[in-house]
């Protein structure tokens, strides 16, 4: 079943030196599965994720031939309709907890804010739900974290708080923008298994945005590889080693390997036809 369908998505920013196309014609379908979007900085992967929620501010413009989420036309939806979708139906975990959590508000208050505003639940119930969400992302001491300010949390904890916050309304689609890039490998594995459990148990769709090709390959079902705003290759994660596109191969080969030969790592050749 298709949850999200995107056809020919373009994101354009008008700058002094003329329009800059951050995303140039991206199309994909997503069911209740884990889709990875991989690319270097500036490849348009974050912009693609934000477009789904129409979270691009002017002067940025979103254009698409079609963008539908579970029967709703996202291009035609009014701002009120979008507000109803954001949160309960589709949610996004932003990249950096340092910049995405409110620094002057306790974590607990931030977690409960949505419950008060959107669901009109009472104080006690909201508190219980927030603690349950923190438990779900395996925070050991949820009562203490509820009373903490974001700067009192480590990067890994902050990241998990953001995931918990997005999961409280139980969305059908979660867009996770580099949710683990600030984390150590061991914590990274933990956060991934949390996300994995949610996709399996709740039947959630997941878009996982990352620059780490190996991580995405290990975790996702399908991978879109982006370069300069275009999808250069779509490949099933298990076939990634046999990826045909030179850019995908380049991204794979430039990573050092344990037990590798220690020769100079191959760089990316950006001169070929596809790089234009």
């Amino acid at each position: 079943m298709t949850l999200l369908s995107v056809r020919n998505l373009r994101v354009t920013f008008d700058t002094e030196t003329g329009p800059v196309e951050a995303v140039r014609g991206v199309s994909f379908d997503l069911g209740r599965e884990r889709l990875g979007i991989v690319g270097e900085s500036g490849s348009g992967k974050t912009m693609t994720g934000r477009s789904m929620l129409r979270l691009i501010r002017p002067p940025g413009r979103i254009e698409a031939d079609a963008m539908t989420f579970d029967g709703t036309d996202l291009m035609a939806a009014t701002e009120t309709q979008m507000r109803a979708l954001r949160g309960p139906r589709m949610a996004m975990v932003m990249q950096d907890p340092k910049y995405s959590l409110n620094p002057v508000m306790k974590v607990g208050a931030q977690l409960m804010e949505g419950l008060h505003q959107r669901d009109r639940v009472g104080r006690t119930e909201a508190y219980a739900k927030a603690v349950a969400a923190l438990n779900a992302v395996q925070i050991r001491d949820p009562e203490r974290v509820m009373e903490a300010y974001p700067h009192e949390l480590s990067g890994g904890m902050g990241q998990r708080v953001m995931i918990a916050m997005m999961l409280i309304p139980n969305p059908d689609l979660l867009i996770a923008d580099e949710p683990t890039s600030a984390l150590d490998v061991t914590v990274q594995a933990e956060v991934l298994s949390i996300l994995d459990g949610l996709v399996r148990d709740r039947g959630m769709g997941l878009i996982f945005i990352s620059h780490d090709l190996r991580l995405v390959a290990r975790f996702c079902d399908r991978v879109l590889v982006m370069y300069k705003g275009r999808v250069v290759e779509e490949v099933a994660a298990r076939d990634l080693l046999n990826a045909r596109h030179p850019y995908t191969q380049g991204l794979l080969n430039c990573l050092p390997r344990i037990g590798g030969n220690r020769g100079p790592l191959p760089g990316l050749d950006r001169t070929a036809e596809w790089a234009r």
Partner: protein
Amino acid sequence: MSLIEIDNLSVTFDTAGRRVRAVQEVSIKVDAKASFGLVGESGSGKSTILRAICGLAPITGGQVRIGGEVVKSPRSKAFSAQVQMVFQDPYASLHPRHTIDRTLSEPLAIHGIPDTDTRVMTALADVGLPTSFRFRYPHQLSGGQRQRVAIARALMLKPQILLLDEPTSALDASVQAEVLNLLARLRDERGLTFLMVSHDLAVIDHMCDRVLVMQHGRAVEELSREALATAQMQTDYARSLFAASADRMLGG
């Protein structure tokens, strides 16, 4: 005698109301022209060891010897001519209001070394940056270019030892490859000794001959490159770190 000798190093911070034992009795020996890696999760004390060597963190127990001599506090000019550090975040480690030229010529001015002009130009060329970058500011450079400037700055005084604190973790995979290649080339050309910190075992394995796994400020296990490649670790923690490394997925 090894070039870098660290004996039972402890670093303790006294903060309001509690003592944080960041590093507890860690010993390391690194031979000249060898590369040694430190891995562990955040808070394991790996960066603190590098900072303690440079004098950016207090040595509260044990000894650090460079070339057989115990380091003095504060560190001398001779020390900085011999040991230099490259920091993790190229966005934070360069002065935002200083041009690249000023960043690179400052160590020369402090040490009274002449020929600033030619040395700055050579330094830029050595790290693969065009000389037209000389009068730019850090915000005009990309992350990879900034890290090249940071490496150039560390090499201005021609040190024997480079302390590398996660030099590539803020960079894209392809840019990481370029910076690692640059470091390997400079090491071969100049006979440098590296003490490198990373949370990525694959990066450490690529660059270093030996690696020390750390957890909670203590040394857990020291591994040779061969032992790492063939997964012959003795402790559970080192094994879990190895298993969690994203590299394993494509091991086959």
